[in-house]
């Protein structure tokens, strides 16, 4: 039935957004991590990608979390001469995570999740309203 299909498709959206939230939380949690040892790179920001997948059982195009890529932009440089991870010039390299960007992404993931939940709620209501015809 189409309603159950739309519920299953929306569920794939929920799964994808949940995966995106996982990546965002990783970024936020690691926003202040420094390099594990001298000369090594600190944490690189991760970017989730989504891709369209054809679900043969559903005969529909669902979404899934694709490869998680890394952001190749420059690391943040902070002048902290006393820091144990500081280089010869007293600069510390921090991950290229901008918490403002992460917060925006987080809100976006939240909104998408809610949109998919709304699809599920609406579909379920439509099914139930249809079944209620039998009851009256």
């Amino acid at each position, binding site marked *: *039935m*189409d*309603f*159950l*299909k739309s*519920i*299953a498709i929306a*569920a794939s959206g*929920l*799964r994808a957004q*949940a995966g995106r939230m996982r990546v965002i939380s990783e970024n936020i949690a690691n926003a202040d991590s420094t390099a594990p040892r001298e000369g090594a790179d600190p944490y690189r920001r991760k970017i989730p990608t989504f891709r369209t997948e054809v679900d043969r*059982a*559903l*005969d529909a195009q669902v979404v899934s979390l694709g490869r998680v890529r890394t952001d190749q932009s420059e690391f943040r440089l902070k002048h902290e001469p006393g820091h144990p991870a500081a280089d010869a010039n007293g600069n510390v390299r921090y991950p290229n995570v901008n918490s403002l960007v992460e917060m925006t992404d987080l809100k976006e993931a939240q909104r998408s999740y809610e949109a998919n939940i709304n699809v*599920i709620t609406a579909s*379920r209501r439509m*099914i*139930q309203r249809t*079944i*209620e015809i*039998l*009851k009256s």
Partner: protein
Amino acid sequence: MTTPTVAANAYATLARLHDPTAAMKGATETPGAGGGFGDMLKNAIGALNQAAKASDTQTQAMAAGKANIVDVVTAVAETEVAIDALVSVRDRVIQSYEEIMRMPI
């Protein structure tokens, strides 16, 4: 006035309800295509049973910390729809039967 065809159509719809889902592979026969009412009922209940089993396994997997909450919710919602439809049809059929029994002869 409720007629047996209404109930028959409802059962056919109920059985078709499960076709697109992967969990419903057992309900391949299309009831109402010539089989009796009993066959139809058997198929519908079989389909319902399978949906219930699927949601049961999902719930157990979640309790064991293995399943995704989204999968559990969708499985339970599917079962709920199937049960709701079957119960409505049953009520309707019983109502029709009672109406027939009340018929003055």
